[in-house]
């Protein structure tokens, strides 16, 4: 069997051998650069553009992308690149808030289910089932409509709708780690349950949970942009990425108003996903 499959595709063995050495593939390096730029946009936006995102020159309204205005200008003559750069902070922060909520609450639920088992597992399992039963975007929409239309509420809603995924992964990872020989050995050496949990089980779960958190960061950017697109985030003059696309769609003659912020969203999420895949494969 082994010899047959080895004959079938020798290139796979080569690939496996190369992957065993830890090295950063070029696409991951590019993705990391993109993420660093996006983070810098959100921290120090004024270093990247000399334009004010909220003040426009009406004489220059709806001009196509050029050397002066990289992403063109909108209906009030505001520089679209500046609006994208200044909108980054809100988009990135809310995605971070969303991931934190999903990660912390989901991990606690998953940890409790997987480690305590029994009745706790059954009860928490149903809670997770309920969260999974409602389509996550619909759940986010309902929560944000109940909390009020603000970007921070959109972030909270997105986070809550991600709890179930984290809980499920964490539970599976804890169950896997708990059944392993090193946990058994720890008990045999006289370690108590808390020691097994903190010293052996948690350290063996965090890698896949981190990979999921990175992936969810990208997903959260998309969900929050979608909520902003529907008008469930902060109203203009805020310039969340999704809101920029939404306000750009009214101007059919100026497609860059859609394409520019859309491209920024796609490249950012693509980079985040690339890093997440790499993290998952190199554990």
């Amino acid at each position, binding site marked *: *069997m082994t010899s*047959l*499959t080895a004959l*079938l*595709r020798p290139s796979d063995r080569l690939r496996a051998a190369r992957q065993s050495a830890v090295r950063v593939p070029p696409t991951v390096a590019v993705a990391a650069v993109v993420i660093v730029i996006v983070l810098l946009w959100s921290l120090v936006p004024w270093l990247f553009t000399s334009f004010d995102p909220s003040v426009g020159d009406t004489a220059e309204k709806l001009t196509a992308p050029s050397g002066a205005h990289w992403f063109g200008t909108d209906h009030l003559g505001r520089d679209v690149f500046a609006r994208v750069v200044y909108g980054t902070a809100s988009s990135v922060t809310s995605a971070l808030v969303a991931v934190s909520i999903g990660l912390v609450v989901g991990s606690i639920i998953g940890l409790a289910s997987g480690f305590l088992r029994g009745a706790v597992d059954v009860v928490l399992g*149903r*809670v997770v*089932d*309920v969260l*999974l*039963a*409602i*389509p*996550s*975007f*619909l*759940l986010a*929409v*309902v*929560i*944000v*409509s*109940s*909390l*009020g239309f603000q970007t921070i509420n959109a972030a909270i809603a997105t986070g809550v709708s991600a709890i179930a*995924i984290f809980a499920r*992964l964490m539970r599976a990872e804890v169950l896997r780690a708990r059944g392993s020989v090193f946990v058994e050995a720890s008990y045999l050496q006289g370690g108590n349950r808390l020691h097994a949990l903190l010293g052996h089980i948690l350290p063996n779960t965090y890698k*896949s949970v981190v*990979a*999921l958190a990175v*992936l969810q960061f*990208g997903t959260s950017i*998309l969900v929050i*942009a*979608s909520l902003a*697109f*529907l*008008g*469930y985030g902060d109203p203009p003059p805020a310039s969340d990425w*999704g809101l920029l*696309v*939404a306000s750009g*769609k009214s101007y*059919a003659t100026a*497609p860059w108003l*859609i*394409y520019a912020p*859309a491209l920024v*969203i*796609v490249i950012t*999420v*693509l980079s985040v*996903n*690339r890093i997440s*895949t790499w993290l*998952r494969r190199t554990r």
Partner: protein
Amino acid sequence: MTKSYGRYALLRAAQALVVVLLAYIGTFLVISVLPGDPITNMLRDPQNGLSDDQIQQIVAHYGLDKPVIIQLILSLGRFVTGDLGFSLQSNLPVSQLVGDALPSTLTLAGTALALSVVIAVAIAYGVQYLPSRWARGVLRSVPSLFLSVPNFVVGLVLIELFAFRLHTFTTIDPDSAAATLFAALTLAIPVSAPLAEVLIANLDHESRQEYALVARSRGLSQARLFARHLVKPSMLPAVAMIALVVGELLGGAVITETIFGRDGLGTVVQKAVTSQDVPVLQAVVSLAAVVFVTVNLLADLVSPLLDPRLDVKSERKVVVPV
């Protein structure tokens, strides 16, 4: 087998019922207990021009003057008996609103599901069998790209290119076949990505099995091997995923229908959110949960019958890429 299967089926059905009821309660609590109290805000809004008598009537119908727990029990009782209440916005029965919107959404979601399966199979086949290594690599990154593009961007770009520039369809008639196809494509693209990932992984696994090698050695062409031997075992885990995908289709419909101007469930949700129409929101979300739970229940009940290797006593494992 039959006895343990009957027990298993009964247990799963009971579990599904509990989840639906809990989903209803959860939605109810989110909508009515969290700050904002949409119903009273909505009723007091002078724009609605409701007279005091009408407000009294609505308050009495929903039992808004009673404690939350009583409201919940009343509301749950109405839901169980199939009474979905009335829209605060249009005063129409919610069941009528949903019933009118359902065909449009079912057409959209059904077309999208079919398209996403076609796209996923095409990608998986290409990744496995395209002659050029370079082309395989490019195709391999397509699912990841599909997952990175927001739904609304896909829709807007398709409208910009095919409606405004090439005039393949018009947004004035959103229910035409061409417009429906593009709307379905918008919805299908993000959904096809996880399906493609699962198919690629399974196809890779199956084509390494000895039976595939034997079939190849008998002189079967790659296309025939794929169609006759590999598709079926690779699709089984994907079928379990389709149940999960249904929820995503319903969520994505909110955005897709808004962009394409279709009058479906998604638009109903979007309008209900904007006008804080609580009974409509509660009904649509609960129905979405019912659909999702039912589809999953069916998938769970059918798969042990389809694949005898699955043991009903152990927990079911679904291959889902995280």
